[in-house]
């Protein structure tokens, strides 16, 4: 049977605050175990939480960037369950009155734009980290580090509007881009500052009722989101095709084995006994303040992509790639502002520059070639001072040494030879030295010309103007 896949994502993102959500401990990543802790985040008897103002501001920012409605009256609640990464055995979260509701974001998949609804955005505290030998169930004991306990989190819940693993990945990428644009989170999946759980179910095509869903955890990279959901959709289809029933359960994505595995013990229903957190007072959000935050939002990815297309004539695809990260879009804008042709800048950034960054495993913020330097290189190429091929060599050198393009060109004598007299002499010398190739070309073998061009480039160390070489060769043969 043909099925429709129905997916909703729950994304947790750690906020970039200096201190934790309810106490003054640092949120820095990678500190020694149990050194970013205090009586409050350790949940010692007698302590009380006080909300970090920045967390509320970031939550409102996020809600607005995701086109949500900000609730004028919001509160915290306690979610009660026992687990050793949670010192109080309740998580302070938001239940029935989250800070933001009813938003959306648009994703582009296979050339089409699709709107995915955002149910809610709420604030909560992160839990600690459990350390054990091997798998948790097989280890003899577990060690607990509470450094992460109380790091502020936003939970962003989508509507079940996603219809494929590819859409899920696109949604997550867009969400990450937005969170980075508005500067509320680093969104480093490898450090756990962006985490994703998915609810996925299948239903026969045309059916409107939702099927039984499984919750997939441990989707720790964009690739895992796509592969995990593809796997789970196939698994559910097989179960249904064989006349089976989907069990409502939590499953974990095992990246190494490439499959989802049931977490059986979680089947026993939890009863979280949510109730209003008596130690925190309600948040009454003033509409003037919300409008101030709305005005302070930067240009978001969709708007920026549209601007790049309109102002510079970039294709939708190119503008999409460049605006997928705020840092790359900023790099592009700075390069163009430094005088570079926009299309050339886009090609360089998406081509050579991205290739070098990927190979070095660096972020664009750490690029050794500054936007102004790239613009200068593009300018040299545009003026014909260097050929496209030489420009790549120059870029290589800029990456390695950090020097300006003009300096490299001058030091290494890489200026293009466009003087006809100079080139003619070499062309004639090469023709004289390769009579067989000349004869082959005359006999119709186009490839022979390539050989002759190569010989001329060898003589000039690649500096001869390629168009001029071609023209002169054809004239003289």
């Amino acid at each position, binding site marked *: 049977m043909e099925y429709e896949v129905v997916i909703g994502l729950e994304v947790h993102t750690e906020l970039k605050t200096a*201190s934790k959500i309810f106490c003054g401990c640092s949120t820095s990543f990678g500190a020694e175990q149990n050194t970013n802790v205090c*009586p409050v985040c350790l949940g010692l008897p007698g302590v009380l939480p006080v909300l970090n103002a920045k967390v509320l501001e970031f939550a409102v920012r996020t809600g607005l960037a995701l086109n949500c409605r900000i609730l004028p009256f919001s509160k915290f609640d306690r979610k009660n369950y026992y687990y050793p990464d949670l010192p109080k055995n309740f998580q302070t979260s938001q239940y029935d009155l989250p800070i933001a509701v009813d938003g959306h974001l648009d994703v582009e998949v296979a050339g089409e734009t699709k709107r995915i609804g955002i149910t809610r955005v709420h604030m909560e505290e992160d839990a600690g980290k459990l350390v054990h030998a091997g798998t948790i169930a097989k280890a003899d004991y577990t060690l607990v580090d509470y450094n992460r306990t109380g790091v502020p989190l936003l939970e962003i819940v989508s509507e079940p509007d996603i219809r494929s693993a590819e859409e899920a990945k696109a949604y997550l990428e867009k969400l990450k881009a937005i969170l980075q644009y508005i500067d509320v989170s680093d969104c480093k999946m490898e450090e756990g500052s962006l985490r994703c759980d998915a609810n996925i179910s299948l239903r026969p095509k045309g059916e409107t009722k939702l099927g039984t869903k499984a919750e997939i955890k441990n989707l720790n990279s964009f690739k895992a989101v796509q592969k995990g959901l593809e796997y789970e959709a196939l698994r559910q289809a097989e179960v249904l095709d064989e006349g089976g029933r989907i069990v409502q359960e939590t499953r974990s994505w095992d990246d190494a084995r490439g499959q989802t595995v049931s977490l059986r*013990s979680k089947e026993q229903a939890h009863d979280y006994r949510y109730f209003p957190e008596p130690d925190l007072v309600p948040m009454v959000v003033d509409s003037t303040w919300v409008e101030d935050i709305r005005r302070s939002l930067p240009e978001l990815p969709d708007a920026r992509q549209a601007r790049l297309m309109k102002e510079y004539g970039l294709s939708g695809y190119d503008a999409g790639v460049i605006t997928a990260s705020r840092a790359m879009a900023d790099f592009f804008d700075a390069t163009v502002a430094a005088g570079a042709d926009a299309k050339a800048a886009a090609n360089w950034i998406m081509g050579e520059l991205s290739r070098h960054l990927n190979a070095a495993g660096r972020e664009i913020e750490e690029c050794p070639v500054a936007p102004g330097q790239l613009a200068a290189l593009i300018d040299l190429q545009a003026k014909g001072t260097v050929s496209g091929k030489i420009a790549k060599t120059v870029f290589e050198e800029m990456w390695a040494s950090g020097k300006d393009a003009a300096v490299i060109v001058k030091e290494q004598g890489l200026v293009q030879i466009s003087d006809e007299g100079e080139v003619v002499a070499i062309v004639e010398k090469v023709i004289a030295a390769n009579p067989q190739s000349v004869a082959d070309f005359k006999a119709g073998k186009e490839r022979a010309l390539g050989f002759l061009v190569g010989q001329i480039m060898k003589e000039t160390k690649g500096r001869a103007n390629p168009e001029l070489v071609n023209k002169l060769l054809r004239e003289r043969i």
Partner: protein
Amino acid sequence: MKITRKDVEQVALLSRLELGENDVEKFTGQLNAILDYIDVLNKVDTSGVEPTAHVLPVKNVMRADEARPSLPRELALANAPEQEDGYFKVPKILEG
């Protein structure tokens, strides 16, 4: 009977408490007596009444986002029943 033995056992599980056979009996009886008394609330018409979770009209209490010194680790772990390498140590967790 408001609360059955099975309810009491479920509540004990949620509360992470062990109950012996006699405890179940005793708590079931006592909790029923208390819940019978609490039934008095059914006489009150609360339709249209807002719940009071906070008795004071205090709102928007927040602190500035400033990192402050944490506890020295020895002090953080000083009350731990078991520790290892600067971690709190707990028995095995039977779930993923």
